[in-house]
């Protein structure tokens, strides 16, 4: 038993080396921003560049919009599939795989062709960018929401609520959504990480987004990209930490975490 445990830790250690050594390397490299000494100079320069904050704020806004639009579209759809139209499941599932099959460059050319001439002259609207992002994050949102719904007894809970007199608004906001908080958070998080780093759509539709900014910095500078990589890593883990906190603060919600019993 103890020996087995020892091996488990050993593999765990090797695994984390694989993961942490490059990270450590990047981090050390990012500290060489000033010749000869270790310093946070590269980080200072990143923060001093107004484009960093501008592009990051822009992408953050887009990410939040994408999350709102994506969840608003998909939550009712997936609930409807679960309760009323199980036959539609394979269709939606196939659609949800399309963004993996069709490269973003194809998507964006389609969008440009379709929407750059009347009657839909909206190539330069943020709406189109968000719509494109919703398509890209569709598989992730769909899967998270679907898993969240599968982890609860959706039919039982909605019928119980209905027999207690509740309408659909109450059922959604007091019963269904609170019980799939964790999966909604993970949908939001995945969407966030897609949108923040997205390059193709932002470049082709000419938006000052964070993805193109990072690409630009990476091409022209040496230490700053390493600093940005470390920053985005911290940001990511910060978000995961927030998710954990949120899921823990929901007392009694074991069903979405540990499955039904």
């Amino acid at each position: 038993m103890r020996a087995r445990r020892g091996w488990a830790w050993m593999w765990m250690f090797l695994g984390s080396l694989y993961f942490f050594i490059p990270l450590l390397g990047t981090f050390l490299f990012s500290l060489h921003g000033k010749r000869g000494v270790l310093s946070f100079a590269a980080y200072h320069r990143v923060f001093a560049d107004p484009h960093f904050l501008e592009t990051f704020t822009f992408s953050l806004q887009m990410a939040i919009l994408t999350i709102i639009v994506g969840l608003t579209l998909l939550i009712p759809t997936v609930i409807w599939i679960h309760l009323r139209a199980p036959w539609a499941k394979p269709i939606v599932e196939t659609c949800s795989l399309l963004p993996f099959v069709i490269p973003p460059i194809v998507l964006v050319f389609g969008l440009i062709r379709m929407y750059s001439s009347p009657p839909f002259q909206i190539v330069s609207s943020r709406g189109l960018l968000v719509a494109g992002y919703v398509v890209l994050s569709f598989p992730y949102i769909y899967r998270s929401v679907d898993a969240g719904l599968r982890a609860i007894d959706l039919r039982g809970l909605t019928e119980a609520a209905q027999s207690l007199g509740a309408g659909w608004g109450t059922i959604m906001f007091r019963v269904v959504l609170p019980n799939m908080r964790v999966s909604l958070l993970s949908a939001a998080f995945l969407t966030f990480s897609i949108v923040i780093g997205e390059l193709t759509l932002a470049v082709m539709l000419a938006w000052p987004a964070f993805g193109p900014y990072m690409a630009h910095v990476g091409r022209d500078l040496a230490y700053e990209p390493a600093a940005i990589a470390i920053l985005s890593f911290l940001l990511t883990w910060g978000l995961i930490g927030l998710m954990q906190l949120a899921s823990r603060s929901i007392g009694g919600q074991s069903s979405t975490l540990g499955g039904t019993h």
Partner: protein
Amino acid sequence: MAFLDLHGVVKRFGRNAVVDGFTLAVQEGEFVSFLGGSGCGKTTTLRMIAGFETPSEGSIHISGTDVVSVAPNKRGVGMVFQNYALFPNMTVRKNIEFGLMVAKWSSAEIGQRVDEMLTLIHMEELGARYPHQMSGGQQQRASLARALAVRPKVLLLDEPLSALDAKIRERLRTEIRAIQKQTGITTIYVTHDQEEALSLSDRIVVMQSGRIEQVGTPFEIYNRPATPFVASFIGNLNILEATVVDAALGRLSVAGQEVFAAGPVAAGPGVKLSLRPEMLSLEDRPEGANSLAGTLTNIVFLGSIVRLAIGIGNREVFLDRFNTPHLALPAVGTQVSINFPREACLVTEPDPAEALAGVLLAKGN
């Protein structure tokens, strides 16, 4: 019109009629069980009363109102599910509060009602627990309290005890009946457990493949089954083939031996004679009772009772005796005669389908 009235209710899924011509009148405050095998349409009927399924034909009235086109959340029908369906994100208290909150009760009234409900189900201490922190029995009691809190007109329970183990099941069913009597709520109880139905109900509806076989009190269902299905479904029954010798006198012949029924029987040449194991005895033969000779083939101890198997003709008949330390039983293989009063004879016409199968079998031979 009765308090809960189903008239000619039919439910089809595709071409398949899952519930067919269901007509039932339930009085206010009555406890009615739907009893039948798996897939006979009990749940479907219940869901039509609750409003989760729409009948293909027929009408459903609750206290005089036609509810077929009324949404489930406007029917005033409470429901208790087999898997409890408590809201996992809410404590017991919050679960019970839910319906009251939806109905916009004042918070003082809500607090009082929830306390009342917790007392009713003997769970005063557990109000702050989440569903996953409770046993199945406690969860089901909470779910009952939640359904009753809003004072529904009708309470529907779909196999509420079948996920629980035997001990809890018995205790909880007594509790459910007590609560039902205390609140006087009209109740429909779905089960495939005949013991549950017999011990709880004012009346039982025995169903088979979407149709009502018999409606009656537990006493009537058990002692005077109207169809062969009911007779065989309820209790452990010995079924013997009999031929009618004299229909008016109730005189039958079983494996060449004479048996008298309590009254006139159906005229057909072949009938079924059903006997309950507890009605048979080996020793005392009262005046005018029937007697059949056979061979003791097996003895099985079942705890408080001993079940004897006796071969009569090509059939085996079971007979139950109470187990006592002084019990003296004949040896296996000896000739015995079983005695039973004329009233013990349940005579039914054979199922047409079964009769046909019999004919085919005979032809095949």
